[in-house]
């Protein structure tokens, strides 16, 4: 098979080029269909329990994701001066007209109602600010009025009066970037005074802006990575001809992988946007091996096809194994429950395999297509490039000999580092916050900081209580009604009508049944004659009594429950403010009773609550009520405003509620649910951490098995896993120790490390076995090992590490994190390989080397190819050194 493919490519290079070109072109054509997805909600699959619940809560309470526009004036009178308020009013009225804005729910000082006392027994309902204030005094009155309403204080207006907010709910949060851009335009049109500072924030904006910047990063960082790799390879090989083939191949790999991803309808998420930059360096490596070996072997007059076949027969298996291990590392991400991470892992794995396939088809085709002249140039260039490795050539043998003199010290040192790292791992703080995906000086971060300084918090979570005991209550009602019907017999017999009614309503929820029953019975009373009417009336009375109980959150004791939970939330110290139906009822009740603070309390009966609410409903915004309680009063939501969107903080809030409920259990039938984006982030993060452990274990075991298979030895298999294990432990230890948050990009790194750094161990061990079998002398082995082989490892590490550095210039933090850690991982794992493996081998020399020579005798094809591969490297080196 292998031979077939290669010789086909050699015989029909034009066909290979045409096929690659055609497929690439087709897949390029898919790319414009790109759909970007930056919604952190999509970190959970659509069926995920908490996400389903979150969306149910949003629907149940008509909640929309919101943009928050803040107007801040640090002047003496704050924003409560005629000019600022007039600006606010204009801005609000124009925002309301923007497409995708849920106009009736826009909250601003100019769209909310005010309740005030107006003399004895008179209460006034009116717009908070229908016309802009004419003077300062009037402006300050508005401030007092807003601050007098608990639901608005610190939500709509900051306590110091320096800031006010406009909450802009959206029909679709994916429109937020456009809406935010339109708002910015309106602000520019309105020409605010220099003192009036405007800020735009809110999670949807952060997410959407992220999506836009993601494109920037993809169109800058990925090509930049290509350029860096190009320069680096030129430095090592000094031949444009030689390195252009791998570069073309890298581009083809990236374009095809992204083309397939987009063509199959997958959205490009923050993770998948990193695919190009991951594939670029990985794709280049194998072809570099081929080309540099080819240029070594090729002599003027040789048949290039024959040389290529020779080279390929040596390199095929090691390339296959290194590609497979890398692919396994990435593919293991498919074990995570996070859809975007899955897609990322699978497509990078696919890209690696594609790169491998192109290496054995496109590269041979490329070589045989070169003219004799070019082939000669190529061979010469490769030879002359060796000089650039002088530094490494001097340094590496020193490391090798240094290590074998103090092997125990090295092992102990590494062990100590591991112990400290494990301690570090225990201190890892799992935390993420989409707003922190932006750099500190990004306008979203600034807005976030300013608005959270003034207001109760721009991060939302919802705590929802559901009453689920209604079925039982309803059954009791039916029983009682049956008795009423029976008792009326034989004088009045409505049992048939009653039976039909029950039958027609069955299957619906208790509450719906009760609602419809009340309406139908009411109609029956309307239509029926005296004796029946009385019986129906009895049933109706009973139904209404039941209804009162079913309208659970209208009961004063249930409202008290909300109140208690709210004070628990506040006591956690992490919550800026909570808003609930309790606050609304208490405020309206206070105003009905004359506005005195002492009357800020829950009315004493369900009917009193209902009548208080009825008064509120004669306002301009009666629907605000339904953001707090459902129309059937079966479910109530507490809106929690947090100053921080950090998952750790949300987690602590959840824990404080859990602790409270341990001592104060909810009444029977009442269930608690969480929702809101800040909460959702905590959930997917939790899933990610567990998923990553699974994925890491899974890929560790698979790679270990592959190593054992490759080396035909359990011991060598285990040995090959040591450097990467040390690297992973060290990296995560450092993350724990320096207090860097374990967030999404950090989580993904473990599997990548595994897949990439095992390559070093494969090369090292195979080479070591081979050399030692020939020399049978440990010192000589080290000498040879730390010449070309060590240099090859270092060179690869440098290419990949430096290849990732353009990510450091990315505008978004997750890319910087990935770039930084991948570069470090490559550097560290190559260093660890070069230090720890010889040290261990020296200590266990007798056992391991015995195996080595044993293994050598029954070396299988794969291993022998590896040996050849390394040998050829060695030959090449000596050739070059001769030059």
């Amino acid at each position, binding site marked *: 098979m292998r031979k077939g493919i290669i010789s086909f490519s050699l015989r029909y290079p034009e066909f290979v080029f045409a096929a690659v070109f055609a497929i690439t072109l087709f897949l390029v054509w898919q790319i414009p269909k790109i759909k970007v997805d930056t919604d952190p909600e999509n970190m959970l699959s659509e069926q995920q329990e908490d996400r389903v619940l979150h969306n149910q809560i949003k629907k149940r309470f008509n909640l929309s994701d919101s943009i928050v526009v803040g107007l801040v004036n640090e002047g003496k009178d704050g924003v409560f001066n005629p000019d600022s308020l007039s600006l606010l009013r204009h801005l609000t*009225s124009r925002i309301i007209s923007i497409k995708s804005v849920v106009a009736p729910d826009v909250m601003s000082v100019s769209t909310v109602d005010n309740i005030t006392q107006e003399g004895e027994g008179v209460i006034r309902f009116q717009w908070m600010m229908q016309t802009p204030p004419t003077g300062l005094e009037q402006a300050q009155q508005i401030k007092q009025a807003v601050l007098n309403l608990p639901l608005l204080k610190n939500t709509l207006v900051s306590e110091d009066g320096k800031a006010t907010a406009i909450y802009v709910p959206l029909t679709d949060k994916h429109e937020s970037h456009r809406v935010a851009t339109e708002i910015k335009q309106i602000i520019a049109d309105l020409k605010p005074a220099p003192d009036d500072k405007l800020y735009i924030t809110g999670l949807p904006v952060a997410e959407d802006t992220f999506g836009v910047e993601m494109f920037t990063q993809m169109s800058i960082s990925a090509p930049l990575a290509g350029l860096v790799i190009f320069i680096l390879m030129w430095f090592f090989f000094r031949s444009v001809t030689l390195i252009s083939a791998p570069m073309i191949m890298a581009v083809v790999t990236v374009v095809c992988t992204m083309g397939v991803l987009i063509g199959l309808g997958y959205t490009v998420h923050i993770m998948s946007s990193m695919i190009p930059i991951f594939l670029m360096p990985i794709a280049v490596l194998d072809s570099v091996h081929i080309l540099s070996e080819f240029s070594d072997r090729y002599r003027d007059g040789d048949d290039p096809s024959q040389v290529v076949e020779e080279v390929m027969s040596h390199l095929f298996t090691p390339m296959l194994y290194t590609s497979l291990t890398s692919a396994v590392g990435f593919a293991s991400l498919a074990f995570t429950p996070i859809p975007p991470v899955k897609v990322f892992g699978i497509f990078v794995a696919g890209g690696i395999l594609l790169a491998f396939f192109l290496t054995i088809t496109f590269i041979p085709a490329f070589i045989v297509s070169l003219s004799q002249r070019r082939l000669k140039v190529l061979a010469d260039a490769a030879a002359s490039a060796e000089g650039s490795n002088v530094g490494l050539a001097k340094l590496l043998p020193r490391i090798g000999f240094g290590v074998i003199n103090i092997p125990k010290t090295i092992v102990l040192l590494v062990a100590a580092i591991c112990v400290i790292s494990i301690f570090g791992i225990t201190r890892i703080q799992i935390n993420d916050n989409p707003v922190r995906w932006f750099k500190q000086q990004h306008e979203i971060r600034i807005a976030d900081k300013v608005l959270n300084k003034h207001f109760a918090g721009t991060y939302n979570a919802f705590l929802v209580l559901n009453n689920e005991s209604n079925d039982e209550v309803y059954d009791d009602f039916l029983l009682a009604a049956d008795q009423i019907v029976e008792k009326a017999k034989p004088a009045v017999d409505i049992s048939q009508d009653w039976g039909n009614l029950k039958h027609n309503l069955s299957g619906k929820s208790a509450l719906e049944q009760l609602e419809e029953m009340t309406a139908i019975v009411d109609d029956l009373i309307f239509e029926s004659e005296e004796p029946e009417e009385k019986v129906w009336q009895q049933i109706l009375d009973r139904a*209404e009594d039941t209804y009162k109980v079913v309208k659970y959150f209208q009961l004063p004791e249930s409202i008290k429950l909300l109140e208690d939970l709210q004070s628990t939330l506040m006591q956690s110290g992490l919550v800026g403010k909570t808003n609930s139906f309790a606050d609304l009822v208490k405020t309206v009740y206070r105003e009905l009773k004359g506005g005195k603070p002492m009357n800020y309390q829950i009315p004493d009966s369900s009917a009193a609550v209902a009548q208080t609410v009825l008064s509120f409903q004669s306002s301009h915004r009666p629907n605000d009520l339904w953001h707090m309680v459902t129309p059937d009063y079966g479910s109530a939501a507490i809106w929690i405003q947090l100053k921080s969107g950090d998952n750790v903080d949300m987690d602590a809030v959840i824990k404080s509620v859990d602790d409270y409920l341990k001592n104060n259990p909810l009444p029977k039938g009442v269930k608690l649910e969480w929702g809101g984006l800040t909460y959702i982030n905590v959930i997917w993060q939790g899933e990610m951490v567990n998923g990553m452990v699974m994925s890491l274990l899974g890929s560790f075991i698979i790679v270990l098995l592959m190593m054992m298979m490759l080396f035909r030895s359990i011991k060598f298999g285990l040995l090959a896993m040591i450097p990467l294990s040390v690297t992973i432990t060290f990296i995560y230890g450092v993350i724990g120790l320096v207090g860097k948050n374990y967030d999404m990009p950090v989580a993904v790194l473990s599997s990548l490390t595994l897949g990439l750094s095992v390559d070093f161990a494969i090369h090292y061990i195979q080479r070591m076995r081979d050399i030692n079998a020939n020399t049978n002398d440990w010192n000589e082995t080290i000498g040879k090992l730390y010449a070309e082989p060590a240099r090859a490892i270092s060179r690869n590490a440098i290419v990949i590490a430096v290849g990732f550095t353009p990510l450091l210039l990315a505008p978004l933090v997750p890319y910087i994190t990935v770039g930084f850690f991948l570069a470090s991982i490559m550097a560290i794992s190559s260093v660890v390989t070069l230090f720890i493996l010889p040290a261990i081998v020296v200590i266990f020399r007798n056992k391991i080397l015995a195996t080595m020579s044993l293994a050598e005798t029954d070396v299988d094809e794969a291993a022998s190819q590896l040996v050849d591969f390394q040998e050829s490297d060695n030959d090449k080196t000596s050739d070059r050194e001769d030059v």
Partner: protein
Amino acid sequence: MIKLQIERMFDMNNLMFHSKQLPVLMVLLGFSLFANAEDFTDVNFIVRFANLASYYAGDDGQAKVRMTIVDKNGKKQRRQFNMVRKDVNEGGDQNFLIKFTKPADVRDTVFMVAKHIGKDDDRWLYLPSIDLVKRIAAGDKRTSFIGSHFFYEDVSGRGLDEDEHKLIDTTDKEYIVENTPKQPESVEFASYKLWIDKVTFIPNKIEYYNKVGKLYRSVETVKLENIQGFQTVVRSKISDIQTGGYTLMEFKGVKYNAGVPADIFTERSLRNPPRKWLGK
């Protein structure tokens, strides 16, 4: 001929005219259409007449009203109340008393509204479970009527002088009138259109447009009945297009000219609503 006669009967300088003439007018109007007479072209006449037909049938009226408020999720709430109305002068001020009968938790809550033309209405509220009488000063009439999608103004009528009226089309069945507020600051709409039935003068449909010209709210006359010679809307539906909710308002037991006394519209009636007119 007939058209002239009708326009003469209707005193253009005075909103008031005797509502007892209304049925007579209706007959004449029906006849005028039957006779294939000319359309009316004076928009002021059309809107005034529509206003009278919609809100001033009889000198007084009483009804049982049921409201079904439906939100976009299909969740329903029902409200039922008895209502009695007495006109102070035709086409002018009116008094209303409203007593809730359903749901049970707001039963016996009483609203009293003194509708004024050209100034804010007076409203009173009695909440039995808090035993509280409150006068409510409302900044405007475009606030929700007891949590429904109807505004107070939809229930009691909007002052004709508050808008500029323009007859934009006359079809086989309807006069289409566009209305723009004289004080745009005071309302949430930019304009609204009335589809006034040529025969009954009851608007078949009203549509409200916001500042960007988008339809966001509409009222439909679903069912019309002739009661004591007055065309009466017994079922109407208002839709909030922005939120996807709607309210259905149904009238039962409508009676006109029952001789409702003027002196029942007092604060005393809030705590002790007259049973004769508002039920037990």
